[in-house]
């Protein structure tokens, strides 16, 4: 099962190098503005897949973790003016804790019950932050961007490159979990939790680990959002769009491997960015909905599964 990691790491280095090079060469800020969102969805889909794809626990609560990450940053900026790296780490920590809490829920809840409980997380989080004046309440809060750290000449470019690095880390974590004994255990849980438990798989520990890591990555992905928009408000931060994007990307790409969510997110978010600009925002949600249903019905193994079939046919 264990394959050599060298090609993967070379690929990762190439991706980060290309992002840095692009930031250096391309002057049009818009590409980075749009690219940032695409990369964010790569992280979210990868994080979603750790729990949803490997272990088979559907999490509709991506927005809750993402939003908690974003608001952790807001609190840190408001109180001590913490730098970006500190914001990301703190966001990962808090969202990881929330993930641990969600993991405890899996003790008793499976299938749709777990899924619905994660929807509840979004609404409860949103309500808490709507009623917390310090971070702007329902109207939101305006934040000032600090000047970018050299060698970057613009903050958006810096956030973009940072997000790409984070995505590579997220994919590496997911890949590690998938190929190690953790992934085998999680797949055993997905196929039959009772059988896994009986064969000595530490199901609870693995589920808690998957929930915590997944939550932490989602929170980290949300942490730079306040600086990216220089404005945060609860309704758009805890928006179901993030949950939909993460779930749909993983389902469309294929949930069995780390590659699926990456491909799915790149495809779906790029289409979304294009449709939003050229047609309308509603149309972009419709595209996601239709693609999700079509793939779930017709190609359960996603793009990765289709590619594999193609290769076998040859």
């Amino acid at each position, binding site marked *: 099962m264990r394959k050599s990691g060298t090609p993967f790491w070379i690929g990762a280095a190439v991706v980060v190098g290309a992002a840095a090079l692009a930031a250096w060469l391309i002057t049009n800020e818009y590409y980075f503005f749009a690219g940032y969102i695409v990369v964010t969805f790569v992280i979210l889909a990868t994080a979603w897949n750790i729990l*949803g794809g490997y272990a*088979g626990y*559907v999490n*509709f609560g991506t927005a809750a973790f993402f939003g908690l990450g974003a608001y952790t940053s807001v609190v840190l900026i408001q109180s001590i003016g913490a730098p970006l790296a500190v914001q990301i780490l703190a966001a990962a920590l808090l969202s990881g804790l929330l993930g641990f809490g969600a993991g405890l*829920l899996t003790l*008793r*809840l499976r*299938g*749709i*019950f777990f*899924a*619905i*409980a994660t*929807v*509840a*997380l979004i*609404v*409860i989080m*949103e*309500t*808490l932050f*709507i*009623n917390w004046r310090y971070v702007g309440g*329902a109207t939101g809060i305006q934040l000032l961007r600090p000047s970018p750290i050299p060698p970057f000449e613009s903050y958006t470019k810096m956030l973009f490159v940072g997000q790409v690095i984070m995505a590579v880390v997220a994919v590496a974590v997911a890949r590690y979990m998938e190929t190690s004994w953790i992934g085998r255990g999680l797949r055993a849980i997905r196929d039959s939790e009772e059988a896994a438990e009986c064969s000595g798989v530490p199901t609870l520990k693995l589920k808690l680990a998957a929930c915590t890591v997944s939550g932490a990555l989602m929170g980290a992905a949300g942490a730079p959002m306040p600086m990216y928009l220089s404005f945060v408000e609860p309704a758009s931060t805890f928006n*179901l769009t993030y949950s*939909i994007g993460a*779930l*749909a990307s993983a*389902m469309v790409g294929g*949930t069995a491997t780390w590659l699926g969510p990456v491909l799915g997110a790149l495809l779906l978010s790029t289409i979304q960015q294009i449709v939003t600009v050229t047609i309308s925002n*509603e*149309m972009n*949600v*419709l595209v*996601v*909905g*239709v693609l*999700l*249903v079509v793939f*779930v*019905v017709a190609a*359960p193994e996603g793009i990765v599964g289709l590619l594999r079939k193609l290769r076998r046919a040859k």
Partner: protein
Amino acid sequence: MFSLELLPEAILFGVLLGCFYAAVSIGLSVAFGLLDVPHIAHPAVMVFGAYCTYVLGRYGWDPILSGLVLMPLFFVLGMGIYRFYYETFEKRGSEAGVRGLAFFFGLTLIIEVGLILGFGVDQRMVEAAYIGQSLRLGEMRIPMRMLVAFSVAVLLTVGLTLYLSRTFTGRAIKAVAQDEPALRLMGANPVRIKQWAFGLATGVTALAGAMLIIVGPVEPSLDRVYIGRTFAVVVLAGLGSMTGTVAAGLILGISESIVLMMFGASWAPAVAFGLLLIVLGIRPQGLFGR
């Protein structure tokens, strides 16, 4: 701030609201509680029903009449949805859980966006003689629209409960929920019974949608709040229990109404989900669990 004088009014309003919540959840109680279909699209179907009522309302139809007329149409729609769900997911068995959930989630999105494209994001409402009036009861004022919704809700719930416990088909539906293999051994076709039951659940949802637009204006994204409310009621009730659905609806309605009066509207949406989390954490089988 909250004063005790307002408490009776809060409770009365909560009871009316609670029966309404029971009625909007009863379709899900059948679809999810009895048939185990992860029907997250239930609230979206209901909002769709509300918009159909709105369209008929523009031709001067009374919303309740529209709801009744829509019922058979939604019944057929529901049978179609179940047939599709059965053929693509249930029949194949493995991994139906994750993919079935994703399917209904996608369906929710498609309905929601379809409504946005058709009607825009603005709030829509219907007009009828009883909307806007209110009944005076001493110091209290009860809006007529709540009373109308309440009456229809009670009739609907009682009707469905009787249907499930007294008629042959109704009992067959309950039998499917209890022991599907046994039913198959008796020579009955569980798929056809489930299809019928899902159609029934969807038909009832059309009337629930009509009540939804009587109670207040609707917008395409309204289904998101109702995901919490309907699932809270169904889970709290104990899957598939009709008596439980009414009790759970009342509990949710009264708690929401009290929270609304004590802390204000911004806290109310969290009540249903908070209640749901508590029930799931402490007593997942619900009040009247089977």
